[in-house]
Each structure stands twice: as structure tokens, then as C-alpha cells.
């Protein structure tokens, strides 16, 4: 008997992509458990604690959703770009620039925060966040469309530029008494949170979940519609599958590269805005715990499906929350990394199948 890896002659069954994604997650926990056991910890106990701190109470779940919100928005943006085979790994930078632009409303200030109705101020912050992210996506998009410059390099490097740009402002002009952060924004410009309802219903007290999560869910529906129903979505799928055929069919590829990059960036920018206005309430260093990069993993694990992005984001949000609760906090990154590794390597099962070959009888049996 021996194992043989054979190219699939037929399409993989429909359930297989879902099964491999779930399998990757489960296997990642098993492998990470093995590593934890090897260093002398009790993996089961850790996982039990993990689960409790993420889903043990409504308050905990609210924290999970707070972490999931930027992941949903960024993951959706990445999913769209990846569908066109545009490898935008610059969501981190687009997130920071979105955060910066929305902070401008309060810090410059663009409006008189104390007299303008909050809905106008917050609306303006959203618009500017979206605009900033789109602008920051426009740069690599233009470079790719006009000069064919590799977007992986440009987006990756622009991430650093964005971080340093923000640092310039929070270390200098906008600094709060020399600290590396702006002063806290007035409560009027905070995104409404569940905790705001605590006066009416004490159940919500301490829940930090803000309306940004609703933006995420709306965008997921809109994106699903774009991808599956719209003419633009058709173009994106066509360019993604065969750009030469798209050009031959008369589709302006350069224009769509820029548009998709701007859309992708806009969502990351909106995520930056929700984080500033909904969670941190100021612009400061490290407002992102690598959301931009986790968003890439989220999109990939969700196989670029908008609704799956939401589910995977919740899983990753849970990992982030749970990771905060235990020491060393690296455990959740260990699991994240293992998941990504397994998901990417499981892709091979889409194209190949593993067979068990009985060398004596030469009969072929399917094993996977």
C-alpha cells in the first residue's frame, strides 16, 4: 500500500471548500494544543478558558464583536480585491489613513464640534474616513494600472508610510500634553454604543459594542449583491479569471483596477473611522492590532465569500479577546498563524486528491 497524490479529473465536491476551512480551524486548535502541551500547559483548560472569555457572557460577546467589526470591513475589502487577483495587503495603511482623515474633523477642526449636530459630525467623519482609505488605495491602484508596478510591494510599503504619517501628528501637532495621542474626542462624536442604553436597561451596562458592526453587516450584503448580481461584479470576476479575455471583451482593466483598489481602501478607511470614533475615541499609536493583516487572513479563510467573512471575523475577534485574557497573549497568534498555514496548504486538496494504492492488486481506492 502506498499513498498517491493524483490530479483531480473532476471538480471537487461543493462541500469540500467548507469542510477544509472548518478542518483547518479544528486542526489548528489540535496542533496548537500539542505545542501548549509540549511546554507544559494544559491545552484543554486553556481552550475552556478561551471559550469562556469570548462567549461566556453577553458582555464578552460584545467585546468579540467590537474586535470583529474592523475585521469584517477590512476582510470584505480584501475579498473584493482578491477576487480580481489584486493582492491588496495595504489595508493596515488604509485603515490608519482613514482613522487620520476622520480625526481631522475633530482635531483641525473642520466643524465646531460642540454646536454641530452629532449626526452631521459623525457622518462627516465617516465620509472622510472612507475618502482617506479610498485615496490611499488609489495610489497603488494607479501605479499598478498605469505602470504595472507590483501592488504587493507598494501596498506593503505604504503601510509604513501611513503609520509614520499618523505618528507625525500624534507626536507633534495633535499631541495631548506631550503624550503620543490626541486628546479624547468629545462624547458627542462617539459612535453610539450599547452601553448608552444602560440607563433604560441595565443589561447593556458596560457593553462597548458600537454601531460600526451594523455598517459591517450592511457592507457584507452590499458586497454580496455587487459580486453576484451587478455588472461591475461580473467585470471583476471576468478580469479576475482572465484579464486578457476581459480586455478582448472591451473591458477597461486599468479603470477597474483603480476602482477596486479604492473600494477596498475605502472599507479599510471606514474601519479606521469606526475604531477611532467607536472604540478608542482618539487618534493614537497602535489603534490597529494588525487588523489590516488579519483581514487578509479572514478574506482568505472565508474563500472570498462576503457572508463567510462575517463569520470568520467573529472567530478571529474571539481569538483576539481571549488572547487578551491569558498570558502569554501570543497563544491566539499561534492559533491564527496555524489556521492560515493550514488553509493555504489545504488549497492543494481542491486540485488534487489523495488515493490509497494497493500496489499488489493495483486497484484504486479513494481516500479523500
Amino acid at each position, binding site marked *: 500500500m502506498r499513498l498517491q497524490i493524483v490530479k483531480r479529473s473532476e471538480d471537487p465536491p461543493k462541500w469540500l471548500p467548507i469542510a477544509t476551512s472548518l478542518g483547518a480551524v479544528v486542526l489548528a486548535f489540535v496542533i496548537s494544543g500539542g505545542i501548549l502541551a509540549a511546554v507544559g500547559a494544559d491545552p484543554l483548560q486553556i481552550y475552556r478558558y478561551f471559550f469562556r472569555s469570548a462567549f461566556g457572557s453577553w458582555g464578552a460577546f460584545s467585546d468579540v464583536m467590537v474586535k470583529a467589526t474592523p475585521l469584517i470591513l477590512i476582510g470584505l475589502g480584501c475579498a473584493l480585491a482578491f477576487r480580481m487577483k489584486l493582492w491588496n495587503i495595504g489595508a493596515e495603511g488604509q485603515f490608519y489613513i482613514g482613522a487620520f482623515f476622520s480625526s481631522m474633523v475633530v482635531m483641525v477642526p473642520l466643524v465646531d464640534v460642540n454646536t454641530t449636530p452629532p449626526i452631521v459630525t459623525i457622518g462627516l467623519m465617516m465620509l472622510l474616513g472612507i475618502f482617506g482609505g479610498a485615496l490611499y488605495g488609489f495610489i497603488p491602484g494607479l501605479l499598478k494600472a498605469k505602470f504595472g508596478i507590483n501592488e504587493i510591494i507598494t501596498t506593503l510599503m505604504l503601510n509604513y508610510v501611513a503609520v509614520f504619517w499618523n505618528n507625525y501628528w500624534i507626536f507633534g501637532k495633535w499631541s495631548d500634553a506631550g503624550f503620543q495621542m490626541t486628546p479624547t474626542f468629545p462624547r458627542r462624536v462617539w459612535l453610539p454604543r450599547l452601553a448608552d442604553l444602560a440607563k433604560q436597561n441595565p443589561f447593556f451596562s458596560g457593553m462597548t459594542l458600537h454601531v460600526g458592526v451594523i455598517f459591517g453587516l450592511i457592507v457584507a450584503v452590499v458586497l454580496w449583491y455587487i459580486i453576484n448580481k*451587478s455588472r*461591475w461584479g*461580473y467585470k471583476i470576476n471576468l478580469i479576475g479569471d482572465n484579464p486578457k479575455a476581459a480586455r478582448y471583451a*472591451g473591458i477597461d482593466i486599468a479603470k477597474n483596477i483603480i476602482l477596486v483598489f479604492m473600494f477596498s481602501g475605502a472599507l479599510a478607511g471606514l474601519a479606521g473611522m469606526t475604531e477611532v470614533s467607536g472604540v478608542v475615541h482618539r487618534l493614537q499609536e497602535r489603534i490597529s492590532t494588525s487588523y489590516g493583516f488579519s483581514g487578509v487572513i479572514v478574506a482568505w479563510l472565508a474563500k472570498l465569500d462576503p457572508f463567510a467573512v462575517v463569520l470568520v471575523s467573529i472567530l478571529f475577534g474571539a481569538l483576539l479577546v481571549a488572547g487578551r485574557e491569558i498570558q502569554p497573549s501570543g497563544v491566539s497568534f499561534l492559533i491564527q498563524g496555524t489556521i492560515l498555514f493550514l488553509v493555504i496548504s489545504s488549497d492543494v486538496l481542491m486540485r488534487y486528491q489523495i488515493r490509497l494504492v494497493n500496489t499488489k492488486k493495483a486497484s484504486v481506492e479513494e481516500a479523500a
Partner: protein
Amino acid sequence: MNEYSNNQRIPAVEMRDITLRFPGVLANDHVNFTLHEGEIHALLGENGAGKSSLMNVLMGLYQPQEGTIRVFGKEVRFNSPKDAIAAGIGMVHQHFMLVPTMSVTENILIGLDKPKLALNLKHYDEEVRHLAEQFGIRIDPSAKVWQLSVGEQQRVEILKILYRGARILVMDEPTAVLAPQEADELIATLKGMASQGKSIIFISHKLNEVQEVADRLTILRRGKATAEGIGLEGITRERLASLMVGREVIFNMHKVDREPGEVVLQLEQVSAVNNKNLPALKNVDLCLRAGEILGIAGVAGNGQSELVEVVTGLRECEGTIWLDGKDIANKPPQVSIGGGLAHIPEDRIGVGSAPNLSITKNVIMKNFESEPISHRWQVNYTEAGRHAAELKQKYDILAPSVETQARKLSGGNLQKLILARELSSAPHLIVAMQPTRGLDVGAIEAVQQLLLDQRETGCAILLVSEDLDELMALSDRIAVMYEGEVVGVVDGKEADLNTLGLMMTGSMRGPGSCPPEPAAAGSQEREG
């Protein structure tokens, strides 16, 4: 006939009652196949007839459910190509498996145990050179593979097999990728190898080539052998074709005499460079009228691809290209598509289709932005599906459903899909490049008839082909290209192979490229 072929000795390969089933498909149905030592045995059949399956059984890639295989009299059971190679059988695939940055000798040595440590390439270069000389194969063993032409790369593949001591060679449609001269050289090489005792299986669906090269032939149709090892004397092309497709094939297309109409396409002093930035088109003048087929003849690489790309808006150029009186030179493809141009590209998979998308999504590629398939900003997929189903029926595209991915279609069906999409837009001008290359006889007939039907409805057709028989059968006029120039235009009825051949090699020039009448006047009128 050589000393080996008419012997009564043990056959090199004897496959008996081979039956190979896949879920839902009977790929081979009790096929018998016998290869004698020193013969060239052609394996003929349409795409999907089971030729490749049969050879994959011989190479050990598939295990048949029934049947026996004997190689030089010994019954064998191969589990992998490794076993087949050990038994002296080697296969040259259509797609070469070479490392471009390595030399010929290095490519031949890949996967072998020797040389063990230090690479004394000189010694192996000598060995390869010697082996090549023995079979009259021209190759420089120290050349890097990326420097070689397709024909030379194929020789490397053959040497790879010979070096491993193969006595039986399987050639999978070896001429499909070659220029005519290279094909001639290959055939001479194969004949030489056969006379030195090698046994060769020659897979093909080109009838004339089979007649030229083979000693005997076996024909497969839908998994069954319709002829087993018959000789070639006294057998006509028509008979071979009907054995392949199961019905009579008309080789002379029915073409109606018809007066061409208005000028549809006119090229004036068009020049362009190729991908390497070298001049590929030099001051080309051409004109094409409604209801006319203008054939473009030429050895591959003399500017035909660039000509097509320039007209379809995929390549920049100098000069003017009038389509119905509008200059479309250097305009993006959407402009010419809007102007009624249909393009049947040379590369069906790489340019003409999106392989992972469904048939539906492939047929709406050019009309998804117009009613009724487009509904405001949406694509109406219900309507698109209906449109696709209609075309599938009308153009006889064989596929389980319109949701089938394009990459799962056979070459002929994919080409029908492309034709269905392009012709359903009621074009004024069709630019078709190699529309029948690689297709089987039945599909060729269908494609050619579709083009003639379009001509009758008054469509202008620019037909680029390397198949001179096809050009002469279909074209009203034939323009010959040589080194980026149009060296002459001949009347389709008066064209003969000899003249065309001389013009294609640049040894002769023909008459002017554009008839003087209404052409020039017409375009100027519309210009104002």
C-alpha cells in the same frame, strides 16, 4: 516499407480488449491495438474519441478495468509512467516538460541517477550529440532550452526518451505546435527512427499528415476502434474521415458566388512593432468589402498576429484603419466591438474565454452591458441563462448545462462557444485567426460552414490561417504576408499552392494589395 515492418515476429505492443471506464464515460470499449517493431502506426480519431485514454493506459497513468497489454510478448501491468519507461516506452506530450534555463543536456539528464556528483557536462554533451546524430536530429546539446524554437524543444523531448533507452515512442499530436517546415523535418526524423528499429505511435487527427507518415493506422470513434491496424494503400481521405466521424464529410464547401459590396475595412499604411519592439507590420494596405472573405496566408510569425491585434484594438500602430468609415486605429477594443467587429482569437483559452466561468458568463462577455441581459446596473442572469441556452442549442455546443465551466469543453465545443458569442452580435466584420486549428474534422466543417453563412449574409471576413487548403476553399481573395509586408493579393479561385508557397517565402511578389475601385472614394466620402 523497411526491413522491420512486414515481419511476423512478436509485436512491440499488443493491447487486447482494453476497456477503460470513468464515471459515466466509456473511454475505451474493448479496443485492440497492435504495434509492430519498426513501424509508424497512426492513431486517428476526433477529440474525445479515446486516443489519449488508450495511450495513458499504455503509459500506466490509468489502469483499465479489462484487457491485457503485452510489450515484446511479455504481459505487463504498469502502475505509473516509471514502469512504462522501464519497459522501453516513452511519450512526447503536446506540452513540453522542459526547464527553460537549463541546457539541452541538463534537461535530458534530469531525473536520472547519473551523473552522481560532479557534473562533467562535456562528456554528456558528447553522448547526446552522438545519440542525436544517430537519428539525424539537429540539436546543439549545450544550448539553453529558452533559446530553442518549439520544433527544437520537441527534439529535446524525443532525445530525452531515446536517452532512456526507449524502443517504443508515443507522439501525442506532435505537429500541432509546429510550423510546416518543422513538421516536415519531424516526419523525416520519425521515418529515420522507424527504419532503425524504433516503433512509433503517432497520434493525430490530421488526415493528410497521417497518409504521409504512417505505415498502418487504427481509428477510434467514441471509444471503439472503427479500424484496427489497416494499411494505407488505396484508402481515400474521405473514407478515413467517415471512419473518424461516422458519416460522410464534405471537403468541398458549398460557396455561393456573390458580388462583394461596400468597403467595410480598410488599412492604410499600417505599421506596428511586436512584443520585442521589432517591426512586425510594414506599411500594410488592405481592403475588405461586405460579403467577402479575405484570406491572409503566410508562414507563422510574419506579422499575422500583429495584424489581427492592430485591427481588433489590442495593439498600438501607425497609420489608419477604417471600419465602416470610422478610424479605429489605436482605439480600445470596446470601440471596434461597438462598431460591429467580431473577433475569433487564435488563443481560445488564453484570450477568447474565461476558463473558470460558466458557459453563460462566457457568452455574455460582450453584451452584458446592453439590454435585455443588462438591467440598469445589474446583470439579469435569468435572461443571460436563456440566451446561453438558446446559443448552446443553435450552435450545438455539447455540454451538460449552461452552468458548465468553459474549461471543461473540448476544443471544438469551446470554439463553437466563441463563434456563438461573436456571431450572435450580428457583426459587419469578423476577424478570425486560425479558427479551425486543432479541431477535429467534424468541428472544422461546422466552423467553416458558419463562416460561409456569415459571408452570405453580407458580413466581411478577415480570415488568417496557416492551412492553405482552408484559405483556398473559403477565401474570395488571398493576401500573402512575408516579414510584415503584404507581398501580394491573389484571387481565391486562381490561387494555387505553388504560387502561394513562393510568395510566402518571399521569392515572388504578387499584384497590388487593394483593388482601386470604390475603396478610396468610399472612405473619403464617409470621412467628411
